Structure formats: C-alpha cells, structure tokens
C-alpha cells in the first residue's frame, strides 16, 4: 500500500540503531529508498528541535532508534528520548501535523532484521499520511 516513497530521516544512536543499520547494509537487506541516517552518540543527544528541523526541511517522516530500556550506555539517555518524542507527538498533533509521522523504536546492535522491519512499517504509516505539506 505504498503509494509514494516517503523521505525518511532516521536518528540512530551509535550503540544500537547505527550498528543495526550497518549490519543490515552488510547483509544487503532491502531498506526504504529515500533514507537519511543521522548518527548520534546517544538518544539523549537528540533535541526536539532536530526532529522539527527534519520535518521542516522536507522529511515526510522521522524514525528515532534508541537502545532498549536498561541498555543505554549512559544509563537513561534513551528514557529521555522517549519522553521527548512522546511530548513532541502531542505537540505535533496540536499543531496540525500528523503524529504518525514520528516514531520511536528500541533496538539493539544485533537486530538488523528488526531495523528493516521498523523502517518498512514506518514507511507504510507515513505514506498513508501522504507527502508532508510545508507552509
């Protein structure tokens, strides 16, 4: 049901998401076409403004990948990201931007298949929302 190829920006923690992405690439798994991956030292480095900038600059959707709970190398960085994303979804909704354009998933370095699954499922959800409208 993908009617167009959404442009995805993925913010990935270097200890989990990035490693899963690299593994997926090594295994030549199929990922969505229009994909930009931004590596961060920790999910906790991700600022709400970064996500907004991504949407502002034409991303149809944003996927945030952080470590599983209790697995954050810096203890609670991933928990901070969860709170930020949840709050942002609420604000996006209030601002008239579909909250489904933003997803957060927990992932481990050894989960390349899950990486692909998360991206594909995000792609579907986002393409249902259509291309993002920039005013």
């Amino acid at each position, binding site marked *: 049901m993908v009617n167009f190829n959404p*442009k*995805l*920006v993925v913010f990935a923690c270097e200890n989990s998401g990035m490693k899963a992405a690299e593994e997926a690439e090594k295994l030549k798994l199929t990922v969505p*076409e*229009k*994909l*930009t991956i*931004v*590596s*961060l*030292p*920790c999910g*906790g*480095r*991700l*600022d709400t*403004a*970064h996500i907004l*900038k*991504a949407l502002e*600059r034409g*991303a149809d959707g944003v996927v945030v990948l952080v470590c599983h709970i*209790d*697995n*954050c*190398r*810096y*203890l*609670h*960085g991933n928990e*901070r990201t969860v709170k930020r994303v949840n709050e942002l979804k609420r604000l996006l909704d209030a601002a008239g931007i579909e909250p489904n354009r933003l997803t957060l998933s927990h992932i481990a370095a050894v989960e390349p298949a899950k990486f692909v699954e998360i991206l594909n499922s995000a792609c579907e959800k986002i393409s249902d929302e259509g291309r993002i409208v920039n005013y």
Partner: protein
Amino acid sequence: MADGSLQVPAVSSRVLIVGGDISCLAAAETLAGLGMDVMVCSPAETADTPAWKRTETTSSEHNRLKEHILSLSNVRWIPDGTIQSLSGFAGEYRASVQIGKNVTSDVFGAVMFSGTCHHILKPEEWGLGKAKRIIGLRESLEMWEDNKQFPGRVIFLLDTGKDDPPDATENTLGLAHRVLMTYGREVSVLCRNMRVSTEGGETLYRTARGNGVVIYKYRGNVSVEKAGKCLNVNFEDEYSNIRLNLKADLLVVAEETLPPETAVELSSLSGVETDAEGYLQAENVWMYPTLTNRRGIFVFGEIHSAGDGAVSLEDARAAALEVYDLLGDGNIILGERVGTVDSEKCAVCLTCLRSCPHGAVSINGEEQSAEIVKAACYGCGICSAICPAKAITLEGHTDDDVLRLMDRPA
C-alpha cells in the same frame, strides 16, 4: 572504556578501597603488587573468616592475605576508617575519612567500593515467634563451631524468600552432611533450587546425597506447625506432586540475603546508581561486572551481587586490574569526544550538572560558568541537548553537524 589518544595527567594515583570483607585485601594486594599506593578502609573483622565462609582453603588464604597486607609499605589499612564524603573526578577524587574522632582528607585517582551482604531471618516466619526449634543457618553454623549438640531430626530450609545465593546452598549442604555423619539421625534439605555453582559444589551435593542427606524440591510455600515437642513441616514435593509432611526436632532456615547496609550511603556519596534490589551499580551490561557510571569508581564483591566467596576474590582482583588500566601510568585517557561549555552563554542553571549521568560537570565560581571535566566526560551529549541556553557543544555532534548530516541527499 575510553578510546581516544588524548590524556590528562592524574592528580593522584593513589587508590581508596572501601569495604567490608577479605576481598578488599585481595584487591589491595593486586594493586600494591603493581606498584600502586593503596588505602583500605575496612573493618578489622575483614580478615577473620566468619563461620559460614570457613573452609580449609579460604581460611588459609585469608590468613595469608592478612599477613601479606600488613607487611606491605604501600598499603595503609585503616580498620576503623569510614568514608564521610567524596567529590571530584577520575584522577582527582577527594575523600574524607573518619578515623576515630579525626577526619582526614586525601586525594585519590580511583575509588573502589565493596561490602558484605547482611542477612536477616524473617521474624514471623510461620507465626511461631522465635521458637527454640527454629534457628537461622548462620546460627546453626556457629552452633557447630561451638560443638553444641544437634537434636534429633534436622531439616534445612532454603529459598523461603526469593532464591538464596549459591553460598547458602554450599553452607547448608556442608553442614547437613556433617550433622548426618556425626549424629546419624534423619537430615533433610528442602529447596526450590540446588545451586551448586560454587567450587566443589557439585561434588558436595553428590557426596551429601550419596551418604544419606535427603533433598526435596518444593513448590510454593512451606508451612510449619508445632506438633508437641517437635515441628511438622508441610510442603508440596515438585517431582511427585504429593504433599509431604516431615517431622523435625530442629528447623534450620537460611537467612534472606540483602545488599550490604552501606550500599545506600555509598550510592548517595558517589552518585553511583543502585539496582532494583539495592546493590551498587545499575543493571546495565555496559558496566558489568566492576565498572560504574562514573569513571574511576569501581565496585567488586558483595556490593554488586551476593553470593560466592571465591568469586568475590577474583572479582576484587579483576577490579584492581581495571583500576591499574585506568590509572597505572599516571594518566587518564580521555573519551573519544568531550563536551565544552561556552561560559558566555552559561547561566549556571545547573541543569547539566543534574542531568549528567557521569558526574562530569563542575561549577567554576570565578568564570561564573559550568565546566565539563574532560577526565570524567563520556561524550554522550545529554548535556548538550538539555542545556536551555544552548551553551554546550559536543565535538562532532553540534547542532550544525546534525543539520548537515540530515540534509545529505537520501
């Protein structure tokens, strides 16, 4: 662990060990052997082997350690010293230690925490109050040491709370076997699980069982009632699914093992998080077994998990090697990247200080600014994201860097 090529000199290469049992001396011995100066704050009883840890090998090792430590000029052992405060960073931890009525302050490059689990016998165990015929495992071991008589049929009970650690099984089986061989009366052990991972544990289990100690695995809870002068112990046997009733003249219950009583205080002194049960160091694979969220602070032995004397000694030596790795050449190797505060923008709101998981932020009164201590920074960027004034940047991951990465063609 840090992976950069930059380093800063440590202000001090001394090591402070705070703890409660013999493993502290093992750690001190390892460090001293590598040429480090060590201060050990650990009670004098540290080297006395308590009854429940007494085997031939452990006793002789303990005596050897104690004698050796006392002979080393680069180890200062302060039996009545307690740590009062801790501040600073890897390479420069300032600790004040109370010795009797005096408090001395000193600078250390690294700090190691250990402790001894404490044990409690759950009081209202079966509504029987403190009955003569129900005693704790530790008390029974002391009874044995004191050559006191073991009356009649003895039942040993494990795992009444959550499952007991391996040393409870080792002590129980050991004593059960000795009682059986000495008195020749019925001896049984009731458990949820037999933990035989201690050294020689499997052999002990087979020997005890082979000589006649009866071992039952129970399901659910065990109930105990007075029956005349003895006790009725009732439980569901896991293998046969039958409810069994055993009579006992003495019931020995393994105490519940709890984290060292010092754990909470050490946690609040040092900013090292505790896990769900109260042991030091949050449950996190990145730190297991001897690291903590603070560079330069290490944990070993029973402060981070209960249960196996021999493992504690190895743990202590491993932690000592980690300390040497960090501090041995007098330099602290920095992380791949560190944060920097722009003092012009900083409003000293303290948000970064409160948010840093690693205790890497200090406040510079003169500059009226927060500062990130390079030796302590892990480069996670959490401070950078959270600073309301956008005063903190992380090399390679500034806002501009993020935008640049985001704008690359897909």
